[in-house]
């Protein structure tokens, strides 16, 4: 077990597109343990993606259960995740372990249907909404070399959209 170093922007590696996991073996499981430890022992976060620690495979970890009063599916290990359907759009505030000292407003799908593999290669699927769906979308962006900085909306945009709600 080891806590892994988190890459921070402007490290170019964060812009890399990660590849699918094909082999679900002990070395994958050992990495998943390290990734969990990195998330649990590092600065508070609700998710982490493998490329953030320099492993360019399509693996994310999401756990919004530490936040009070938010519907969630507990701790999720999502391998080769795919969003198969999405609905609605909401703006919320995000920050990133890989982008210290900056937060900004980002528009995300409000609810998503998600398919992925678990640690043993079994297919799993989830319907999720709100904060948990946002966390998954944030982490999945890392797999495609994107950061929340790529989706920022300005304050005024946010206000315009919200104005007469």
């Amino acid at each position: 077990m080891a806590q892994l170093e988190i890459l921070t922007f402007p490290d170019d590696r964060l812009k890399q597109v990660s590849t699918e996991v094909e082999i679900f073996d002990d070395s994958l499981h050992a990495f998943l343990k390290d990734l969990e430890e990195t998330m649990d022992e590092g600065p508070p976060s609700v998710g982490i993606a493998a490329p953030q620690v320099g492993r360019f495979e399509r693996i994310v970890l999401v756990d919004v259960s530490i936040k009070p009063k938010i519907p969630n599916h507990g701790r999720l290990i999502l391998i080769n995740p795919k969003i198969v359907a999405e609905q609605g759009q909401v703006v919320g505030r995000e920050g990133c372990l890989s982008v210290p000292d900056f937060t900004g407003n980002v528009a995300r799908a409000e609810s998503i249907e998600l398919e992925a593999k678990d640690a043993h290669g079994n297919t799993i699927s989830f319907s999720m909404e709100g904060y948990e769906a946002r966390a998954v979308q944030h982490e999945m962006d890392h797999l495609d070399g994107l950061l929340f900085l790529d989706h920022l909306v300005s304050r005024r945009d946010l206000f315009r959209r919200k104005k007469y709600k």
Partner: protein
Amino acid sequence: MKNWFMLTLIGQDRPGIVAGLTRALFENGCNLGEASMVRLGGMFTIMMMVETESDRTELITLTRPMEASTGIRVHIDEIEGALHSHIEPNYRFTVYGADQAGIVAETTETLARLRLNIINLETDVGGTDENPIYIMHIEGETKAKQEKIERALVELAKRKNIEIRVIPINTLIG
């Protein structure tokens, strides 16, 4: 030895203000920090953090040609502040209603009693000349609980016949 200054500019809006200023600063070895620029009522304002080895007098000399040619007024303060000291808002408020005196004062007084530190505040007047509506957005930081904030604002909304929304900002770090 480098110092931080806050440059505050205000003047008639016209193309090229920002480019002219930032070019002059760049060519004289200044680094720019955070900045906020906004156009309001035909005027343009800039607040800009500038780090430089120059002193205040040198900065004044640097911006004087711009003042002379554009009529923009420049104000310079030496500041203690530095980068990487953001305060994160944890609540957002939207207030709107028929335009009337005192909406800003009463709302911000109520928020001040809740020990809210206002980080952003913007207001707009929409509607028509006959029926103007006032819209205000505030982002701020307070330790007060949402229920307590809502109680205080519901009372105010009733009294002024305005709508007030409280939206907690739950910043997602991932």
